C-alpha cells in the first residue's frame, strides 16, 4: 500500500487519500464520482456529491464506485438457532456444543422461536415485507468449522425482503453539513453461524472451537446503493443502533457479533457495472471504510493500467492498509443448494390470518410484534430535536456513544438547567473529558447526579462556569484544583462558610 500511495502522488493525481485517512468525514476532492442512477434520500441539505470527480489523465473519464454490503448479525438469544445449547461470548472452547451442533448422525434441527421473532422485528424496523411463508435450505461446502458439511440458510425464500435503511453522512467540513441517504435492503435471512478455526502455524494444525457453530445469524443484504467507505460505514453504524435498540443483536463488531462483507466494483457512469470483488470479514467500522476505499482505488488503478478485475474474494490487512486475495479458488464454488428436508416451511401470521383457536405458543403474529416494537434511533433523535431544541448533529452524537443518551436523560431529569446548556455540557465538556481519559460512559467517575448538581449550581450562578470546569479538572485527578474550588465557594458565600466544611462537602460530592 505504501508503494501505491507514493506512486499516486508521483503521478500527480489530483485527489489524494481523502477517504483513507481518519478525516474521511471531511472528504474532499477525492477521486470517485457518484452515479446518479440510484435514488437518494430526502434531505434539507442540497444533494452534493460527497467527493469530487476524478479526471484521469487520459480522456477525462469519470469513475463511479458501487458498494453493496452483506451484514451478518448474531441474534441475541439464550440458545442457538436450531438447538438448545447456550449462546455465550468467550466461554471455554467446545463447552457450548449440543449433539446437533457437533453434527452427530441422527440429530435434527428444531427452530428457535426467539430467533424468528428477532428476524421479524428487524424486518419490520427496516421497512421490509415479511414473508408469511419462508423456506430453509442447505448450502454445502467442506470446511473444518462446519461440522455437517452444510450450513442451513434461507436461499430460496427468506423471511423478509424489500426494505430500506436511512442513514446520515457528512457532506462538508462543518458538523451541521449532513445529508440523509437511503440504501435498499434486498433481504433478511436466518442462518447458522459456523464454528471458529484457530490456525496454529508452528504445529501445522488448526484448532476448531464449535461454541459458535449453530448460533443464529441475521444476514442483512444491502443493495449496491452506496459509493464509498464512509457511506458504507455510516449505514452499518445506523444498522447497529437499530439492532441494539430492538435488542435483536448486540451488534458489537469487536466481539464478532456484527460482521460485514463488502461487494465493490467500479465503472464509468453510463456504462455497465464492472466486475465486482468481495472483501470479507471486516470487523470494525473504521477498517470497513478503509478497506472499501482502498479497494475502489485499487480497482481504478488496475483498470486504468489496462488490467482486468478478477471476481474474487479478498481480505483486508489492517496493518498494511490494503486488500489481498483470500481464497485460492479456481472458478467459483458451487454450493449445491438443496431444500432442508427436516424443517417444514416457516409460516407466520397476522391478526387477519391467524387460525382460530391457535395456540399462541405455536404461532407468531406479525401485527402483535409490530405493535410492540421499541423506539427506533431515528425516532429517538427526532424527539430529542423537538423536545430539547438540539441540532440534528447533536442528536447523532448522543446516540452514537454507548450509554450517553441515558446519561444525558438522567442529567436532564435532575437538573433545572436549560436543556441546551445540558446538551452543550454533555456533548462538549463531559464527552471530551471521557475521550481524554479514554473512558466509556459506564466507566465515568462523574455520575449524572453529580453533573446535574454542578449544572444546578451553575444555573443559580452560585459558581462560575470556570469553576465548574475546575470540578471536572478535579475529577481528572488534579487534587490541587479542590483548593481553588474552596476559594471560589468561600467567595460565593461571602466568606461565611468554614473552609474545612466546604472541603468536606466538596470531597463528598466529588467522590460520589
Amino acid at each position: 500500500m505504501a508503494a501505491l500511495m507514493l506512486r499516486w502522488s508521483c503521478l500527480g493525481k489530483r485527489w489524494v487519500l481523502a477517504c483513507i485517512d481518519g478525516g474521511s468525514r471531511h472528504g474532499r476532492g477525492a477521486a470517485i464520482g457518484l452515479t446518479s442512477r440510484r435514488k437518494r434520500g430526502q434531505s434539507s441539505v442540497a444533494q452534493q456529491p460527497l467527493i469530487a470527480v476524478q479526471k484521469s489523465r487520459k480522456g477525462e473519464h469519470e469513475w463511479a464506485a458501487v458498494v453493496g454490503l452483506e451484514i451478518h448479525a448474531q441474534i441475541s438469544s439464550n440458545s442457538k438457532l436450531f438447538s438448545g445449547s447456550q449462546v455465550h461470548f468467550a466461554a471455554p472452547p467446545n463447552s457450548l456444543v449440543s449433539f446437533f451442533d457437533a453434527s452427530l448422525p441422527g440429530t435434527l434441527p428444531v427452530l428457535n422461536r426467539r430467533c424468528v421473532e428477532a428476524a421479524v422485528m428487524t424486518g419490520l424496523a427496516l421497512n421490509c415485507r415479511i414473508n408469511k411463508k419462508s423456506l430453509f435450505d442447505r448450502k454445502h461446502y467442506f470446511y473444518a468449522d462446519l461440522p455437517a458439511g452444510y450450513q442451513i440458510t434461507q436461499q430460496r425464500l427468506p423471511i423478509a425482503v424489500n426494505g430500506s435503511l436511512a442513514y446520515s453522512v457528512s457532506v462538508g467540513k462543518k458538523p451541521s453539513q449532513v445529508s440523509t441517504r437511503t440504501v435498499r435492503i434486498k433481504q433478511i435471512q436466518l442462518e447458522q453461524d459456523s464454528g471458529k478455526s484457530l490456525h496454529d502455524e508452528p504445529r501445522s494444525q488448526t484448532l476448531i472451537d464449535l461454541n459458535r457453530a449453530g448460533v443464529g445469524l441475521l444476514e442483512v443484504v444491502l443493495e449496491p446503493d452506496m459509493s464509498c467507505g464512509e457511506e458504507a460505514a455510516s449505514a452499518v453504524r445506523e444498522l447497529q443502533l437499530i439492532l441494539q435498540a430492538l435488542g435483536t443483536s448486540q451488534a458489537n463488531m469487536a466481539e464478532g457479533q456484527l460482521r460485514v462483507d463488502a461487494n465493490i466494483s467500479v465503472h464509468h457512469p453510463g456504462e455497465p457495472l464492472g466486475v465486482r470483488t468481495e472483501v470479507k470479514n471486516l470487523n470494525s467500522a473504521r477498517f470497513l471504510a478503509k478497506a472499501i476505499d482502498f479497494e475502489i482505488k485499487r480497482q481504478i488503478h488496475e483498470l486504468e493500467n489496462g488490467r482486468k478485475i478478477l471476481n474474487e474474494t479478498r481480505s483486508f490487512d489492517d496493518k498494511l492498509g490494503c486488500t489481498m486475495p483470500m481464497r485460492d479458488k479456481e472458478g467459483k464454488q458451487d454450493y449445491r443448494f438443496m431444500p432442508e428436508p427436516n424443517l417444514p416451511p416457516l409460516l407466520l401470521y397476522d391478526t387477519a390470518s391467524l387460525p382460530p383457536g391457535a395456540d399462541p405458543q405455536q404461532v407468531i403474529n406479525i401485527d402483535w410484534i409490530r405493535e410492540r416494537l421499541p423506539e427506533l434511533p431515528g425516532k429517538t433523535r427526532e424527539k430529542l430535536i423537538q423536545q430539547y431544541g438540539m441540532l440534528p448533529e447533536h442528536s447523532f452524537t448522543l446516540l452514537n456513544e454507548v450509554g450517553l443518551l441515558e446519561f444525558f436523560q438522567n442529567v436532564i431529569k435532575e437538573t433545572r438547567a436549560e436543556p441546551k446548556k445540558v446538551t452543550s455540557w454533555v456533548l462538549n465538556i463531559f464527552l471530551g473529558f471521557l475521550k481524554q481519559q479514554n473512558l466509556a460512559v459506564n466507566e465515568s467517575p462523574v455520575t449524572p447526579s453529580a453533573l446535574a448538581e454542578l449544572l444546578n449550581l451553575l444555573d443559580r450562578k452560585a459558581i462560575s462556569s470556570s469553576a465548574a470546569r475546575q470540578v471536572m479538572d478535579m475529577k481528572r485527578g488534579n487534587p490541587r484544583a479542590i483548593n481553588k474550588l474552596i476559594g471560589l465557594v468561600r467567595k460565593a458565600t461571602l466568606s461565611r462558610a468554614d473552609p474545612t466544611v466546604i472541603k468536606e462537602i466538596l470531597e463528598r460530592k466529588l467522590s460520589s
Partner: protein
Amino acid sequence: MLGRTLREVSTALKQGHITPTELCQKCLSLIKKTKFLNAYITVSEEVALKQAEESEKRYKKGHSLGDLDGIPVAVKDNFSTSSIETTCASNMLKGYVPPYNATVVQKLLDKGAVLMGKTNLDEFAMGSGSTDGVFGPVKNPWSYSKQYREKRKQKAHGENEDSNWLITGGSSGGSAAAVAAFTCFAALGSDTGGSTRNPAAHCGVVGFKPSYGLVSRHGLIPLVNSMDVPGILTRCVDDAAIVLGMLAGHDPKDSTTIQDPVKPFTLPTSADVNKLCIGIPKEYLAPELSSEVRSFWSKAANLFESEGAKVIEVSLPHTSYSIVCYHVLCTSEVASNMARFDGLEYGHRCDINVSTEAMYAATRREGFNDVVRGRILSGNFFLLKENYENYFIKAQKVRRLIANDFVNVFNSGVDVLLTPTTLSEAVPYLEFIKEDNRTRSAQDDIFTQAVNMAGENLTSAIPEPHAKEPEQLHVTSFSYLPMTNELAGIIETFVVT
C-alpha cells in the same frame, strides 16, 4: 415360547408362566445358536440381562409397564443407541458409540422392552439385499428350512452345504432375520424405498412402514430425510399394531412429525372386510413379476373378495417414472447427508495429515463402500447449479404427480391397495450378486418406493394368518418360501372398523 406372538408372550409374563430373565436368556442362547445367520452386529448381552432384571422386579411388584415390558426386541444398527456401538454397517462408524438414544429406541426402553442387540444391514441402509455391509451379508433363516433343504438336495449334488443360502432382502435384513429366527419378538428397521417391507417379504414376517411424520426420526441416521421412516418387523400384524401404538406420535425433537395427537388403537380380533374396497393397481403387473408371486397376488385378491370385500382395478399412472425419480431424489439427499462424515468430530479418521482436504478425501474413501460413494457422486451431480433444475426440481415435480396418484385413488372410495412387495421370492446370494447394488435396488424397489415418495403407510403383511387357515395357501402355492403381498393404505381405517 419363542415362537409365540408378542401378545401371547406378554400375557405369559404377566401371568408368571415365564420370567423376563428366562425369556431373555432363551433369546440370547438362540442368538448364539443362529450366529451363522449374521443377523446381529452387536449383541448387547449385559444390557439385556440388566433390563430383564429390572423388568422382573416390576412384574414382581405388579407394576408392569405394559405389553412391551420384558419383551426382547432388536434394533437395526442405523438407530442411535446410547452407549451401544452404532455402525450403520460401515467402516466410517466402526467404534462410534453414540451419547443418546433415538426417540423410538427410548420409547421402547421406557416401556420396558429388552434390547437384545443391533442388527445387520446394507451399509448406511443402501441396498436391497443386506449383502453390502462391512460385517458381511445376512442369511435368510428360510435357507435352513426343511423344505428348502429338501429342494436343494434334489437339485444340486456335490454342492457345498451352505453355499446356496438365500438373501434376506434389505436393507433391514438383520432385523427381519432376527424376528424370523425367533430371537426376538419385534425389531426396528427403517424404510426409505422398501427397506423394511422387502426383507419382511423375503423372511416371511410382517413389515410395517408407517406414514411419514407418524413416527419420530430423531436418532435414525438418515438416508433420505424426506422419505425415511422407522419400520416395525414382527411375526404377526397384531404385534406390529402393539409396537406402533407405543411409537407413534409427535416428537418435539423431530419437526417433521405431525402435531395432531395419535389415538392408541387395538386391532379387532376378527377382521371384517365386507365394507372394504381394495384396489389393484394395474401398473404393478410388471412383466418381471414371477409367476408364483402373480398367482399369490390373485389368490390374496380372491380371498378378500370371497370374504365380502370389493376388489377393483385402479390406476397409478405415473408408476413407471417413480424409480428414476426416486433415484435422483435419493442420491441428492444422500450426498448432502453424508457430507458430515469427515472424520473430524467422530467416526473413522485416516492417518493422513498433510492437509484438511487430503484428510477428508482419504477418510471418506476408506470409510465408505462403493455403493455409498457412488450415490454421493451421483447426488452431487444432480445438485450442481447447472443440473439442479433439470434433475432435482424435475424429480420433485414428478414426485408430486406420483403422490397425487395415491391421493386420487384413495379419494375415489378405495380404502386399501393390494400389491406384491417383491418381484419374486428370495434368491440365493450367489445369484443376487451377479448384478450390482444399483441394478438390484432399481429392480427390487419397484413396488415399494413409490409409496415412500408419497409418504403413505404400508404394510407388507401375510394377510392369510388373519383370514383363514394360512396353511391352505402355503400348501397350494408353489413356493415354500414366504412371499407377501403388500397392503398399502390408510391402515387406521382398516383396523378401527
